[in-house]
């Protein structure tokens, strides 16, 4: 073996090679660690951002407008979620959305609109970023549209308000506009109470769309509140049916009925004709939407008389048992004449009210100072807001002036020269039933009895109420208001309507009353405006409505009727076999 070969047999370490390899390996690890450190420590934000872009989503929880129910929990207004279909015309154009016209045709078919009309909206301005195609689409249709996968066409949540009571409570409840904002009635007044705001929350979603982590709340939502009204839908429905029938039969322009709970001032029913269907918004007319029972004022006529009598009794200018001479059935004051429909002879206070004698009332009114009478009428609620707190309420009008002619004082006593709303009138009659206590009117169901104000002494209120019982009995002006079983105290009113320069040929027929007299529960006012039939007296036009509503309502409230029949006792005898 040569020396060379021997050297070769013994392996030698080539140092530079080793260093290069070791160096390379070290470099590899250093760069890996460096990269990891760079990602983890120096600039972690970028990757986090990338990750968040793919997983973080903001979800919003839509809330529906609060429910409106009557006092027994029956729904008067319910919101149901629907969808709005909208398009982004720019995106439609950019994504070549018109390539498949069959889809557009299908969209047009399901929306019941011509396809050209829809395309026109999208094509008219390609730079536009938003246009509604159709609002308030039902969820089923919305799903279908979603599956059409039209580029640039999207769905948006919104809600639609339904009014199950329909026209029965239309003016009272009011309506919302298409953006779910109350614009009329209770919907308007209590808009912020009923409206909630959606809550928004950041969440992390997994690849398959499940929420895996809930992060911070972007926007704290506010849940909407429900509203419980004092209305009793059964009575409301009954009142509306009777009023509608009477309005049609008498060909009247309009009518209102107000039913008040005597002991709390709660409104149990408030209906108006003509009404409208709040679920069909296409044909809304302003004159149908007005809540006439509280917005429209008129001269009350004879229905005011009991309160003039009460005022005089309270002032002490006449006595309970006073007999007033009305001979010869007419009276000359300041060159003008006050007359009765016929001469009734000398009358007690009750008879004056029962026959609605203007002469008798004039004598009573003239016995006391006019300011005292006006102040008294104001204290029972005339010329004041009733406390119902709804937009559009009218306070009526009482003239406040120094000089009154005797004739004006006389006309005041039978209800001319001042204006009232039906609601005010109902509140006044409720005072008679509540032993002289005036309560603020409430449209919301009350948890406890409100603080009332004693405006008539209990004795006077009681005696005036009993004087009015005769009105519905034989010989009175409103025998049609008589209810078998529920003795009722009420007063008719037939007032001529003022036109420019005097009084016209149109009338307002009214009946107002409380029942049952032995333990009053309800005060009802019926006003029928401009009856055009043969009959126009309050006793003929308004009284039947009053009787039907009052007897039905008292039955629904389980008020025991006063009947001569023997009461049935549940026998305690066991029915065992003999």
């Amino acid at each position, binding site marked *: 073996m040569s020396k060379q070969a021997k050297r070769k047999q013994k392996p030698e370490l080539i140092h530079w090679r080793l260093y290069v390899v070791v160096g390379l390996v070290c470099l590899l690890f250093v760069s890996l660690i460096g990269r990891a450190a760079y990602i983890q420590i120096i600039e972690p934000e970028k990757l986090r951002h990338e990750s968040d872009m793919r997983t973080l989503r903001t979800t919003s929880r839509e809330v529906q407008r609060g429910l409106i129910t009557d006092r027994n929990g029956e729904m008067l207004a*319910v919101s149901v979620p629907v969808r709005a279909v909208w398009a982004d015309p720019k995106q439609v154009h950019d994504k070549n959305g018109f390539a498949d016209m069959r889809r557009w045709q299908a969209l047009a078919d399901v929306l019941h609109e011509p396809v050209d009309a829809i395309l026109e909206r999208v094509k008219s301005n390609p730079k536009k970023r938003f246009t509604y195609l159709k609002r308030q689409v039902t969820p089923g249709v919305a799903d279908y549209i979603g599956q059409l996968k039209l580029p640039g066409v999207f769905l948006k949540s919104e809600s639609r308000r*339904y009014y199950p009571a329909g026209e*029965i409570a239309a003016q009272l409840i009011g309506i919302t506009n298409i953006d779910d904002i109350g614009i009329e009635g209770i919907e308007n007044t209590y808009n912020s109470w009923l409206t909630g705001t959606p809550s928004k929350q950041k969440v992390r979603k997994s690849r398959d769309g499940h*929420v895996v982590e809930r992060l911070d709340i972007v926007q704290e939502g506010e849940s909407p509140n429900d509203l419980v009204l004092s209305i009793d839908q059964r009575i409301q429905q009954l009142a509306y049916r009777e009023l509608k029938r009477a309005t049609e039969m008498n060909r009247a322009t309009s009518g209102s009925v107000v039913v008040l709970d005597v002991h709390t001032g709660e409104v149990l029913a408030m209906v108006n004709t003509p009404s409208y269907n709040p679920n069909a918004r296409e044909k809304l007319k302003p004159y149908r939407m007005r809540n006439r029972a509280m917005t429209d004022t008129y001269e009350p006529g004879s229905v005011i008389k009991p309160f003039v009598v009460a005022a005089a009794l309270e002032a002490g200018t006449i006595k309970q048992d006073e007999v007033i001479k009305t001979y010869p059935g007419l009276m000359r004051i300041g060159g003008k004449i006050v007359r009765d429909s016929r001469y009734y002879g000398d009358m007690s206070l009750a008879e004056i009210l029962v026959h609605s004698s203007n002469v008798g009332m004039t004598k009573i009114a003239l016995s006391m100072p006019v300011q005292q009478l006006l102040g008294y009428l104001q204290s029972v609620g005339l010329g004041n807001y009733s406390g119902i707190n709804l937009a559009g309420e009218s306070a009526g009008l009482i003239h406040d002036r120094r000089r009154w002619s005797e004739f004006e004082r006389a006309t005041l006593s039978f209800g001319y020269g001042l204006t009232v709303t039906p609601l005010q009138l109902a509140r006044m009659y409720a005072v008679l039933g509540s032993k002289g206590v005036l309560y603020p009117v409430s449209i919301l169901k009350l948890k406890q009895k409100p603080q009332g104000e004693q405006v008539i002494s209990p004795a006077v209120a009681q005696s005036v109420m009993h004087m009015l019982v005769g009105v519905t009995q034989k010989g009175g002006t409103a025998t049609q208001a008589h209810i078998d079983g529920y003795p009722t105290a009420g007063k008719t009113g037939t007032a001529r309507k003022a036109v420019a320069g005097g009084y016209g040929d149109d009338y307002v027929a009214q009946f107002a009353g409380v029942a049952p007299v032995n333990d009053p529960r309800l005060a009802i006012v019926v006003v029928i405006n401009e009856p055009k039939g043969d009959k126009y007296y309050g006793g003929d036009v308004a009284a039947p409505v009053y009787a039907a509503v009052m007897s039905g309502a008292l039955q629904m409230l389980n008020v025991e009727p006063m009947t001569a029949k023997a*009461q*049935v006792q549940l026998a305690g005898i066991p029915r065992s076999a003999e």
Partner: protein
Amino acid sequence: MSKPQLNLTRIIVLDLWRHKWVLVVATLVVLNAILVVYTSHVSRKLTTQWDQLLQERDRLDIEWRNLLLEEQSLAEHSRITRVATKELNMSRPLPSEEVVVRLP
């Protein structure tokens, strides 16, 4: 050469025994790490479930609202009155015809 025979296994065991606390802690660390993973997995599943339940609640709420509407339109008073009078030949008694039954 008479070096004492060393039993490697024995040495390892002895050594481990000497550092037993470190071992225990190391095991705990590993266990803990696994538990963290497991817990976050469970929490994610629960979150998903919660979210699904919320969605279910919303769906039921919508269904309830629609059923309410249906109930209201079917139980509308004038409809009940009509059915009772026309189809069932019922009528509302007058107040004077009412008979009051008192519970003893």
